[in-house]
């Protein structure tokens, strides 16, 4: 067994580190540290910086303008990005629809869509879940009926992240109701400007509307926006879900947050003349999170080792999703714990870009509860942790 990087890998790590130090705008870094959301323009700007460096598409092959990195190189890149707090490119285009396009799209579709994704010219969003189809995604009902050279789409999609920014949406739609539910689903790309599409923002518990419900009313979609074959969408979607599940452990971000927790604890009065870093209960919880993070990191490295010798990500990646999300939620609990009374004020607007009013509470302590509320989503989305446990019990344990 060996977990050391090679000399080349170490050199690459240095290069990434240096690039991020110099080229991830200091202004964005400050915002991320202060818990302020980056705007659409800022995210796009950052992605274009990555594009100029040739590092926008870490998961793409070279032929499409990707980096062609090995599993280890991807890991190094993701780690350094997470440690400094640089946002990963918005996944809907780069990590979700692009791999499906590459695998199942026509040449015309690839040429039409991939360059704009690579250059961050077009913002994509996801149209999977429906109000009545969450964990049971295959029961989706949004219909697409062929009419000449077009499909007519009716229905609604929900939990659509940043749909308000999106130019395009990739959707799973029902094209056959007479067969087994998985066999009547198609994968379709829809221009968000098409008449008949309306968006309704959904405000979450943190007071922010990052998700939407999207309604389709007699939306006419050119038939050449269908990916691959009609009624094969479920197969394609499963490929996408596997991609969604790699890199979900969030170890680098976890390390960054753990360091922040330790710093913060050292600066937080315990009320009795010491700091929270000296509080026995808090110290124990901090140590437990630290230890779990290390166990998770090595679980991820073991998965990575399998990938780097060409094995496909197996059902074991569910472990990373479950533990990674639950650990992130535990860290939120620790931030809430440290903030004490300071996390009670509900003033979400002070963490929006361009807030001009008088801030409540010291630093970003009032963001702790908001993050705790918002991150309850982690164990729900991307295949809920219940679904992940089903995968482990069925596919790994054979139950």
């Amino acid at each position, binding site marked *: 067994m060996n977990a050391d990087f090679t000399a080349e890998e170490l050199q690459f790590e240095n290069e990434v580190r240096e690039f991020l130090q110099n080229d991830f705008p200091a202004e964005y870094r400050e915002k991320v540290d202060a818990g302020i959301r980056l705007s659409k323009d800022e995210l796009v700007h950052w992605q274009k910086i990555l594009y100029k460096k040739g590092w926008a598409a870490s998961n793409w092959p070279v032929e499409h303008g990707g980096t062609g990195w090995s599993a280890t190189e991807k890991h190094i890149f993701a780690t350094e990005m997470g440690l400094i707090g640089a946002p990963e490119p918005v996944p809907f285009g780069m990590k979700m629809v692009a791999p499906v396009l590459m695998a199942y799209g026509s040449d015309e579709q690839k040429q039409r869509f991939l360059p704009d994704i690579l250059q961050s010219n077009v913002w994509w969003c996801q149209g999977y*879940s429906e109000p*009545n*189809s*969450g*964990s*049971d995604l295959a*029961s989706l009902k949004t219909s697409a009926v062929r009419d000449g050279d077009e499909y007519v789409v009716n229905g609604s999609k*929900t*939990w659509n992240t940043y749909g308000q920014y999106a130019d395009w949406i990739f959707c799973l739609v029902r094209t056959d109701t007479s067969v087994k539910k998985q066999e009547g689903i198609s994968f379709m790309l829809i221009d968000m400007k098409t008449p008949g599409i309306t968006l309704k923002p*959904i*405000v*979450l*518990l943190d*007071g922010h509307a990052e998700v939407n419900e999207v309604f389709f009313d007699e939306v006419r979609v050119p038939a050449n926006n269908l990916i691959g074959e009609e009624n094969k969408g479920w197969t394609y979607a499963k490929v996408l879900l596997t991609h969604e599940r790699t890199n979900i452990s969030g170890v680098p971000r976890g390390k960054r947050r753990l360091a922040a927790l330790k710093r913060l604890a050292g600066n*937080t*009065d*315990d*009320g*009795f*003349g010491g700091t929270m870093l000296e*509080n*026995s*209960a*808090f110290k124990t919880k901090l140590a437990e999170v630290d230890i779990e993070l290390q166990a998770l990191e090595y679980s991820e490295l073991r998965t990575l080792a399998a990938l780097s010798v060409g094995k496909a990500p197996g059902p074991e990646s569910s472990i990373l999703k479950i533990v990674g999300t639950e650990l992130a*939620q535990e860290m939120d*609990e620790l931030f*809430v*714990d440290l903030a*004490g*009374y*300071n*996390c*009670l*004020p*509900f*003033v979400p607007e002070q963490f929006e870009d361009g807030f001009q009013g*008088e801030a*409540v*509470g*010291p630093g970003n302590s009032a963001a702790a*509860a908001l993050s*705790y*509320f*918002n991150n*309850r*989503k982690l*164990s*729900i*989305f991307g295949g*809920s*942790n*219940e679904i992940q*446990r089903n995968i482990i019990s069925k596919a790994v344990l054979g139950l």
Partner: protein
Amino acid sequence: MWIFSNTEEQQMLQESVQKFVYKSYDFDTRNQIIASEKGFSQENWDLFAELGWLTVPFKEDDGGFGGSAVDLAVMMEEFGKAMLVEPFIATAVLAGGVISEQGSAEQKAELLPKIMEGSLQLACAYAEQGSRFNLANIKTSAVVEGDTVVLNGSKTAVLNGSNAEILLVAARESGAATDSEGISVFLVEAASAGVSIQSFANVDGKKSAEISLKDVSVPVSQRLGTSGSALQALQDGVDRATLAVSAEAVGAMESLLHKTVEYSKTRKQFGTAIGTFQALQHRMADMFIECQLARSIVIMAAMKLDGGESALEKTKSVSAAKSRIGRAIQKVGQEAIQIHGGIGMTEELDVGHLFKSVTAAEIMFGNTDYHTQRFASL
């Protein structure tokens, strides 16, 4: 013999709150109240006074209903089920309690009737940045100059701070920052020169404030009781408020459990109600267990507060309750959201607001770790 059933009076009190909630406190109404300028309904407050609810925390000697902690718990549980945002704890339980314990006969005669008839809003400003949950950690200074006292300092997490006409300001007249001696409580009119109030709503919808005091002068006669002796009264008031917020959380958890179970019976995935999945059934059974243990320990603490136990036993039982409740809150709150799935994360559904309410309750008056450690150290 153990009797855990409510007395006839307690049952009437419970039914009276239930009736009010059913008639006048649905989720939409609550949202409108939170969005209103004051952040609570004066009309409701007047009704609370009319129904006699504002007398419940007070002893008969003070002209109250009796001041039984069990009565209070019975009532707060019903408040919690519907997440009432009216400043009952801030004005009647906490500030009223401190005045009742520490005030002179004249001060009590002047203020307590007004609280009970609903014409006076109060807030207790004790916590400070850096004091965390230690009530003795007070840096706000009180310097006596002849007949007046000058206050300087800042206060955090002042529940009802923006609506209170009079603030009960805990300040230090002598001693070092964490000494138990030297703390006095002063009655300060919120409109006094030098008082600035930053107002906001907490995550549970209740109004709160950050308050700073810059050379605020008040007559020495506005001190509650004698100089430097207020910590015990403050402690007792906060203990009672802790019991009240714990009982409120029991009610809110009850609602969370109920709503989750009902949702699991109607939400269909994979062709069946999700409540038929054993994986979820066991987790809801665990939520039920947590709710029951939470209720038991709150009843225990309330009974001990009303009984003949020593002051130490009473305080210990409050910390025991708050500590255990805190664990229940985390489990019941998180599971309720998880089992609801995405819909539980939206502002539109009450379950998320219940989750936010119990999260605030976990922190209020000292969080789980604080009370566990306090229990261990007593």
